[in-house]
C-alpha cells in the first residue's frame, strides 16, 4: 500500500468508519429511538460516500456561472421553432446532439436558419468557455437528494411507529417490549 | 362394435370416470339418482374397456398424447396388454364394488356418501390413466392423484382413528413417492433422456453406452421398488393395515381394484419397460430385490397369522401377495413376469371376494374378529362359501385362478435357478393355508352346545357381488390360458 493510495482513499475509509458506526448503533442498540438515530447516521454516511465519488480535484459546484447561462438563455426566448425541432431531435440519442438540433432547424423553418447557426456558434463558444471550469459530477448529488428524502420519509415513519409502540407498551426498550409480549402470550 | 376408433376409446374411458365425479357431485342430493349415475358410468366404462381390449389383445397399440405438462414431459397414453388387463380388472371390479358399496353404505347408514362416491370415481380415473400411461411421468402423476383421491376414502369416518390411519397412509405413500420414486424418475430421465415405456427397456441402451454402472442400476431399481410405496414392500407396508380404518368397500378398492394394484403394476411396468427383463437379469440388479420380496412374503404371512381382526389379517395377506408380484419382476424371467401380470388379475378377484365377505359379515352380523365367526357359516352360507373359493384361489390351489399365476412364478424361479425362491413360494403357500382356510372351516362348524344361528345373509346388494367375484375366480382358472396368450407380447 503506497502513500499515494492512502491519500487517494482515506476519504472513503473515514466514510466507511462512519457508516459502520451507524450500522453498529442500529444492530447493537435495543432502544428503538437509538436504532432510528443509528439508521440516520448510517444513511447520512452513505450520502457522504456518494458525494465523495462525484468530486473532481479542483472542480467547482455544478452550477454554471450566470453569465454563461444567461448568454445561452437569451436565445431560446426568440425561437420557439428551435425548441420544437429540438424536442423531436433529442430523442435520437446516438447522434451528436447539437448538430442534430441545428439540422432540424434547417429543415423545419428556413428563415430561422441563420438563427439556428447562431445558436450553434454560441453553444460551441460556450463549450469552450466551460472547459475552463471543471465541474464536479452532478449526478451523485441528484441521487443523494433523492436518498435524503427517502431517508427522512423512513425516519418519519419509524418515529410514528415508535410513538404508537410507546403508547401501547409504555416503553421503547426492545427487551422490555419482548418481555411484555412473552408475558401476554403465556397468559 | 366399431363405433369409435381405439384412440377415441382411450379418451372415452378416461372421460367416463371424470364424468362420473361430476355427475355424482351434481346429483348428490338425490341418492338414488346419484347411485344410478355411478353404476351407469361404471358399467359403460367396463363395456368400453372390453371393446378396447379386443383391439389391444389382437395386437393393436392405440395411443393418445393428451398434452404437455411441461416442456419435455408429455402426458400421453398408450395401451399395451399389461395395462389393458389392469384396466379391465379395475373397471370390471368397479362395477361390482359400486353395487356392493351401495348395499354396504346404505346398510350402514354412512355419512358423506356423495363425497365417497365422487372420490371413488376419482380413484378409478387415476387407475385408468395409470393403466394406459405411455411414460413414467404420466404414471407418476396418476399415482399421486390416486394417493390424494383415496385419502378422503380412508379417513371417511372422520374420527380420531381415521385421522391416525390417514396419517400413516398419506405419510408413507407420499414420502416414499416423493423421496424415492420422484428422484428415481428424474434420475432415469437424466440417464436415458426419455421416460417413454419401451419394449425391452430404455436403460439397457444407456447401460451399454456406459452412462450408468451396474451398482447405480441396482440403486435405481431399489429407489423404484421402495419408492412405489403402493406395492407395499416391507418395510414400507405399514400404510396398508393402517388404511383398514376405512369402510369395507374402500378396503376392497384399496386391496383389489385400484391402489395396491397400481403399485405392483407400476413395479412391473418399470421392470419391463424401463429396465427390461434382460438388463435386470444380466446386471444382477434384481438379486437383492428377490431377497427383500421373499422376506416380505414370509414375514407378512407370519404376521397375518397373528391377527384376529379379519380385515387386518387380509391386509397382511395382501402385503404378502403383492410381494409375489414384485418377486416376479425381480426374478426377471419371462415366465415369472407373466406370472406377475396374471397374479394382478387373480389376486384382485380373489382378494376382493374376501373383503366383500368380510364386509358382508360386518353388515349382516356385526362381527369383525375371526374368533367371533365360529358357526357363522350356517347363518351366512353363501358368504362363507364364496370366502372358501376365494381363499383357495389366493392360496394357489385349483380350481382357483391363483394356481396358474403361482405356477408361472415358480416356473420362473426354477428357470433362474434360485431354488430358495421355490422353497419360499411353497412355504408361503402353506402359511396361506394356515391363515385363510381355518376361517371358513370354523365358520361352518358349530361348536357343541350352541344353537345354530338363524339364516341371515347380508344385504342383497352385498351378497350378489361377492358371489359373482367368487365365480369369477373359478372362471379365471378355466380361462387362464387366454389371459396368458394375451399377456405374452409383453415379454417378447
Amino acid at each position: 500500500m503506497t502513500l499515494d493510495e492512502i491519500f487517494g482513499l482515506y476519504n472513503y475509509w473515514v466514510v466507511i468508519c462512519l457508516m459502520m458506526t451507524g450500522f453498529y448503533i442500529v444492530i447493537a442498540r435495543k432502544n428503538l429511538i437509538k436504532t432510528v438515530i443509528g439508521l440516520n447516521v448510517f444513511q447520512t454516511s452513505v450520502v457522504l460516500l456518494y458525494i465523495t465519488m462525484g468530486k473532481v480535484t479542483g472542480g467547482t459546484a455544478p452550477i454554471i456561472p450566470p453569465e454563461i447561462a444567461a448568454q445561452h438563455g437569451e436565445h431560446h426566448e426568440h425561437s420557439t421553432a428551435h425548441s420544437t425541432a429540438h424536442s423531436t431531435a433529442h430523442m435520437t440519442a446516438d447522434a451528436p446532439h447539437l448538430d442534430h438540433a441545428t439540422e432540424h432547424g434547417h429543415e423545419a423553418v428556413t428563415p430561422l436558419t441563420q438563427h439556428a447557426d447562431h445558436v450553434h456558434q454560441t453553444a460551441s463558444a460556450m463549450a469552450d468557455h466551460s472547459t475552463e471550469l471543471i465541474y464536479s459530477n452532478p449526478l451523485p448529488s441528484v441521487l443523494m437528494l433523492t436518498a435524503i428524502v427517502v431517508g427522512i420519509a423512513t425516519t418519519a415513519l419509524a418515529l410514528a411507529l415508535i410513538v404508537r409502540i410507546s403508547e401501547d407498551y409504555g416503553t421503547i426498550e426492545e427487551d422490555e417490549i419482548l418481555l411484555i409480549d412473552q408475558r401476554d402470550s403465556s397468559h | 362394435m366399431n363405433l369409435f376408433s381405439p384412440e377415441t376409446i382411450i379418451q372415452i374411458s378416461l372421460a367416463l370416470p371424470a364424468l362420473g365425479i361430476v355427475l355424482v357431485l351434481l346429483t348428490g342430493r338425490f341418492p338414488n339418482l346419484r347411485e344410478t349415475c355411478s353404476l351407469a358410468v361404471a358399467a359403460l366404462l367396463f363395456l368400453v374397456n372390453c371393446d378396447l381390449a379386443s383391439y389391444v389383445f389382437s395386437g393393436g397399440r392405440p395411443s393418445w398424447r393428451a398434452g404437455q405438462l411441461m416442456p419435455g414431459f408429455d402426458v400421453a397414453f398408450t395401451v399395451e396388454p399389461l395395462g389393458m388387463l389392469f384396466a379391465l380388472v379395475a373397471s370390471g371390479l368397479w362395477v361390482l364394488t359400486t353395487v356392493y358399496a351401495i348395499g354396504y353404505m346404505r346398510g350402514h347408514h354412512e355419512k358423506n356418501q356423495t363425497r365417497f362416491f365422487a372420490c371413488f370415481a376419482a380413484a378409478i380415473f387415476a387407475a385408468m390413466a395409470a393403466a394406459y400411461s405411455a411414460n413414467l411421468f404420466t404414471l407418476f402423476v396418476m399415482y399421486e392423484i390416486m394417493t390424494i383421491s383415496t385419502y378422503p376414502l380412508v379417513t371417511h369416518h372422520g374420527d380420531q382413528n381415521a385421522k391416525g390411519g390417514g396419517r400413516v397412509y398419506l405419510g408413507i405413500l407420499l414420502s416414499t413417492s416423493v423421496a424415492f420414486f420422484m428422484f428415481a424418475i428424474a434420475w432415469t430421465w437424466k440417464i436415458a433422456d426419455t421416460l417413454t415405456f419401451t419394449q425391452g427397456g430404455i436403460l439397457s441402451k444407456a447401460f451399454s453406452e456406459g452412462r450408468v454402472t451396474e451398482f447405480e442400476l441396482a440403486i435405481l431399481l431399489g429407489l423404484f421398488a421402495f419408492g412405489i410405496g403402493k406395492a407395499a414392500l416391507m418395510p414400507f407396508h405399514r400404510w396398508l393395515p393402517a388404511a383398514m380404518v376405512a369402510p369395507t368397500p374402500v378396503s376392497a378398492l384399496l386391496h383389489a381394484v385400484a391402489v395396491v394394484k397400481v403399485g405392483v403394476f407400476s413395479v412391473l411396468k418399470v421392470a419391463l419397460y424401463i429396465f427390461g427383463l434382460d438388463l435386470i437379469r444380466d446386471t444382477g440388479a434384481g438379486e437383492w430385490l428377490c431377497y427383500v420380496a421373499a422376506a416380505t412374503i414370509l414375514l407378512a404371512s407370519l404376521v397375518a397369522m397373528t391377527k384376529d381382526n379379519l380385515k387386518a389379517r387380509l391386509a397382511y395377506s395382501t402385503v404378502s401377495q403383492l410381494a409375489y408380484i414384485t418377486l416376479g419382476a425381480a426374478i426377471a424371467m419371462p415366465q415369472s413376469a407373466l406370472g406377475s401380470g396374471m397374479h394382478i388379475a387373480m389376486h384382485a378377484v380373489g382378494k376382493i371376494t374376501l373383503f366383500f365377505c368380510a364386509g358382508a359379515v360386518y353388515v349382516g352380523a356385526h362381527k369383525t374378529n375371526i374368533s367371533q365367526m365360529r358357526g357363522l357359516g350356517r347363518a351366512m352360507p353363501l358368504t362363507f362359501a364364496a370366502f372358501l373359493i376365494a381363499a383357495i384361489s389366493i392360496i394357489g390351489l385349483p380350481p382357483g385362478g391363483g394356481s396358474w399365476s403361482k405356477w408361472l412364478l415358480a416356473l420362473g424361479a426354477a428357470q433362474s435357478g434360485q431354488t430358495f425362491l421355490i422353497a419360499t413360494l411353497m412355504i408361503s403357500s402353506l402359511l396361506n393355508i394356515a391363515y385363510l382356510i381355518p376361517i371358513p372351516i370354523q365358520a361352518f362348524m358349530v361348536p357343541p352346545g350352541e344353537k345354530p344361528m338363524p339364516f341371515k345373509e347380508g344385504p342383497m346388494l352385498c351378497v350378489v357381488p361377492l358371489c359373482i367375484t367368487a365365480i369369477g375366480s373359478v372362471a379365471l382358472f378355466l380361462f387362464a390360458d387366454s389371459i396368458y396368450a394375451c399377456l405374452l407380447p409383453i415379454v417378447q
Partner: protein
Amino acid sequence: MFVSIFILTLLVVTAITIARIGDLWAAVMFTGIFSFLGACWMLILDAPDVAFTEAAVGAGVSTFLMLGTLALAGKTEKPTTSSSVVPLFVVAVTGAALIYGTLDMPHFGDPNSPVQTRIEPSFMEKSQSDMHGLPNVVTALLASYRGYDTLGETAVIFTAGIAVILILRRSNDGFKSNDVFNSQSNSRKGSQ
C-alpha cells in the same frame, strides 16, 4: 485538505459519541450536529444542493421529529445488557469488506474515474443546450433527466405522509378512541 481532515475527524468523533451516549436528548442533538458537519463537508465536495438539503433535513426536520418523539416516548436509554460481540463482529466484517472493496476504486477526486468520464458529453455540457441555459445542472438533472426518480421520491414522501396519518391519527369509529382532530371528529359526530 486540512479543513476536510478537520471536519472528517469531527464527524468520526461525533458518530462515536452518538454510539456511546446514553442520554437520548444528547444523542439526538449530536445527530443534528453530525448532519450539519456532513453538510459542511458536502459543501467542500461541491455539492451545495445536497448540503442545503442535508442541513434542512438532517439537522432540521429529523432532529425536530426525534425531539417530538422523545417528548412522547421518554428520554433515557436503558443501558444495553446484552453482549455486543455479535454486532461488533458483523460490523467489523462489513467494514472490512468495504475497505477491501475500496482498494480497486479510483482515487478521490480523480478526473479520469469512470464516474467523470463515462458520460460524454457530460451533463454539464449537454444540459446547456437541452435546458436553454438553466444554470443549476443539479436541478436540471433532478427534475428532467432523472425526473422520474424525483417523481418516485415525491411518491415516497407522499407515502410517508399518508402512512403517518394512518399510524398516528386516531380513528373515530369504535376501533380506537381519542381522535387527534378533536374539532373535526366533533363536527362529524354532530353531523351523524
